[in-house]
């Protein structure tokens, strides 16, 4: 019993000290230093904005080797919030997100191509039960020690999505065929 325990412990510590080329960060959704916002044109006259209030995720990032970056995010789609309950009910209903059937959305990155500002993060987005490849334009905002003994890195990103591609066909008009996601992601290094 004891031998098994020590063996397990040894294995665990070996794994945890295994060399990592990128540091692992947990997205600070707890402290809400991260947000997933969206905007969509209203009839071509203005931007309607809102956000998903609840999500969790983690990413790996190393300034020395940015190409190895990766990210995983899980979004609670029921937390959709456009600051208007009747609209939220409509959007969460079966004409749009159908959250009773598809309460979770996930994003898993597949590749990161660095460029001068940051890079392009490609990955698979699962939304409304459909999985599609999307590309996130990423800008690095900054990284460094925080005042409380931790270390943080943060990025912003934008995504263009076409709800129709995911199977949401409700007609909001020609100006509203694209939804833009504005992402602000701060992670705390583990």
């Amino acid at each position: 019993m004891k031998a098994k325990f020590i063996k397990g412990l040894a294995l665990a510590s070996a794994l945890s000290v295994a060399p990592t080329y990128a540091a692992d960060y947990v997205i600070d959704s707890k402290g809400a230093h991260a947000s997933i916002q969206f905007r969509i044109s209203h009839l071509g006259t203005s931007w309607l904005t809102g956000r998903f209030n609840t999500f969790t995720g983690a990413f790996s990032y190393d300034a020395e080797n940015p190409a190895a970056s990766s990210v995983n995010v899980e979004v609670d789609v029921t937390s959709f919030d456009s600051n208007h309950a009747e609209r939220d009910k409509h959007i969460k209903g079966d004409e749009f997100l159908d959250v009773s059937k598809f309460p979770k959305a996930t994003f898993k990155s597949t590749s990161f191509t660095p460029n001068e500002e940051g890079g392009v993060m490609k990955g698979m987005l699962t939304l409304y039960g459909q999985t599609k490849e999307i590309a996130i334009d990423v800008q690095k905002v900054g990284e460094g020690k925080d005042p409380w003994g931790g270390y943080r890195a943060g990025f912003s990103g934008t995504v263009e999505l076409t709800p129709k591609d995911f199977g949401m066909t409700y007609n909001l008009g020609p100006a509203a065929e694209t939804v833009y996601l504005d992402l602000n992601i701060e992670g705390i290094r583990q």
Partner: protein
Amino acid sequence: MNIQCDAANNHQVGYLQSMVFHRKLINDQSSYGWGHILLHWLIAFAIIGLYPLGLYIETLDYYDPAYRTIPYWHKSIGALIIFALVFRVLWRVLNKPPAPLPQPERMKQLAKLAHLMLYALLILTLVSGYLISTADGRSIEVFSWFNIPALPFAFDNQEDIAGEIHFFAATALISISSLHALAALKHHFIDKDTTLTRMLALHEDPQ
């Protein structure tokens, strides 16, 4: 006490006269007064109208000219029913309805249960409807006459949960209302009693 004396006098007057001119505002032991009758039909017609309107809202296209007006009417009328219902419940508590017409004990109990469910489902439908539109703290605008404010608190996904309850409660309400109407017709045509006519103010039951 005065009420009952008046009602008793009332019954000695000729049928035609008493039907329209001498019917009292309040109920007596054998007949409904105008207050109860009007409140009953006001709410009946409102829910008969609001149910299909509510279903229609779900089908409206974003570019439908009525996309904004029909929900507005639905909410405004619904909000007015809240007031009518509060008034009706007070009216009913303060002014006992007439004694039930004779029928088997079992049917009496069923009728009582149906009436109780109609009240409960009506309250549930109205409260859940209110909770949908006020889930974000917005008030409900009633025909631009006045606003009904939101509660100072809300629960998670309130608009979705209240929305589900609203649909099921309203559907149950309209279903039991239909049974209620069928039962009234059964009393009228099969039992040939005054269940329906006394709610239509067409009958003055002689004591």
